[in-house]
């Protein structure tokens, strides 16, 4: 049992400890400047977050985070479930098809992101050429209006297969005779889904939704690769990274930590509400 101490220790030192220490940093004016004096400043960082000349951007980051989480979670899971239902039954080359849907997860953010940047390149990218032919907007990742939606698109493209796989696992655990019984009763396909499939995969749905909500709110690597935060694509999670490391002024540890705390409150509240709602639904079904 002493072996349990090892993971526990690592976790406390590198994940849990720093997470808790974020609270502490968020009340200081610490910066990335070595040797600079620092002290406690109360709620000043929180005030700076929401009460500065750039507050419009900060609020947009929050809105973006929520929009990102909502759309990604919704579309990724609805499409994932739908595709899981489709490929759960016998198909030619079904293992190839499933593998391909999952492939972007394997390729990872950098590769997937760069491939889509090539696809959407204004100078000869195939998607650009196609959209030009169709007289559609070709701003893609560099339009103030649409780039965030394109980031969301790439994110969903990447992780749909992941959701699908989890749903598929849920579907395959449903005993076949449940359906047979339902069909003998003369239930329709939709009713069978509604009353047999859906309740049976409820646990996978809960896990899937919860993980993707939390994950989506904290995602920023895809933004880093696709737009590096330009063109109104910053989210709360990206702002933390930007304030902490990647701004062209001195790294602002206090501000970044305050941002991390705000994001945490969002994640915590949303995850809690969803968990309670999902669990209640599981019981109801």
């Amino acid at each position, binding site marked *: 049992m002493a072996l349990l101490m090892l993971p526990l220790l690592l976790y406390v030192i590198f994940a849990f400890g720093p997470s808790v220490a974020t609270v502490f940093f968020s009340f200081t004016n610490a910066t990335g400047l070595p040797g600079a004096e620092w002290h406690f400043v109360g709620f000043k960082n929180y005030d700076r977050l929401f009460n500065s000349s750039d507050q419009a951007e900060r609020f947009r980051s929050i809105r973006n985070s929520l929009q990102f989480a909502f759309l990604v979670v919704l579309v990724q899971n609805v499409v994932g479930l739908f595709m899981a239902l489709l490929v759960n039954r016998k198909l030619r080359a079904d293992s190839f098809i499933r593998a391909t849907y999952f492939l972007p997860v394997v390729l*990872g953010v950098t590769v997937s992101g760069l491939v889509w940047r090539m696809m959407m390149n204004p100078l000869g990218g195939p998607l650009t050429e196609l959209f030009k032919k169709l007289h559609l907007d070709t701003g893609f990742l560099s339009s103030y209006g649409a780039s965030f939606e394109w980031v969301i698109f790439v994110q969903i493209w990447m992780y749909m297969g992941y959701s699908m796989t989890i749903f598929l696992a849920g579907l395959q655990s449903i005993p076949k005779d449940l359906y047979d019984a339902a069909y003998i009763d003369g239930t329709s396909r939709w009713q069978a889904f509604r009353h047999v499939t859906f309740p049976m995969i409820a646990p996978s749905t809960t896990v899937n939704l919860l993980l993707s909500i939390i994950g989506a709110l904290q995602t920023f690597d895809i933004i880093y*690769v696709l737009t590096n935060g330009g063109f109104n694509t910053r989210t709360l999670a990206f702002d933390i990274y930007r304030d902490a*490391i990647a701004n062209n002024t001195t790294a602002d540890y206090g501000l970044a930590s305050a941002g991390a705390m705000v994001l945490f409150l969002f994640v915590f509240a949303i995850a809690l509400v969803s968990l309670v709602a999902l669990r209640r639904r599981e019981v109801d079904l």
Partner: protein
Amino acid sequence: MNRESRWLLSTRYLIVLAVLIIYLIPLFYLFNVSMKTQIEHLKSPVGLFEQFRFSNFSTAWKQGDFSKYIWNSLLYTVVSTLLSILLSLFAAFPIARRYVKFSNLIYLFFTMSLFLPNPLVPQFWLVNELGMYNEQWGYILLRTGGTGIAFLMFVGYIKSVSRELDEAAAIDGCGYLRYIFQILIPLVKPVMATGVMLTAIGVWNDIIGPTIYLSDNDYQPITRGLFAFYGQYLNNWPLLGCGIIIVAGPLIVLYVFIQRFLVSGALAGSVKI
């Protein structure tokens, strides 16, 4: 169940294929570009390549210095994936079996990592204080943990494995470590495969971590190399295409081997949070 009409079947095929195309086109396009010469690409960016030019790969390999980066990536990925999986197992087994006090509490404590505040700032500070900044072992240590997705999957799965084996082993006087390695690991193979895959993907593709914690060019992993390569060779798409494929290659190979475990692994992972 078996009464799927012809019409329904063809719709099903149609949708599956349509989605498949959205997944295959970018990948095919990538391959297409990588087989062209630069002039060929400039003349007709979306046209088909004229012939296979695998020599593009060796050019990209050399110009992108990928031989240097790939060893780093392999080192980071292999070591921290193996350690993480082992630690996850060490953590998951006693918790799943409730062999330790406060199992539930510890479990909750570990799952908290999913939504705790982003530890970036204190972590960066800590890494500097410990002299782990720009050290390969430091980065590996950072990427190693026993509380990620693999841990959740192990706990879920081990709960479904019968306890009788434990008791038999205890009677045999089988040591704890020996029990884990000889009996438990073969039992949890599908989950372990999935866990390895997901953890390896995470480490291999990590782009933010190396940017922050490793500064030496010699320590950069292959994704970082690719990103710099991308910035540098934006004019030369065929080389870029090759670079991207080179980076994606090793994981695809791993994926081919592990893919068959994926669904059963995911099943275990989705048991309960």
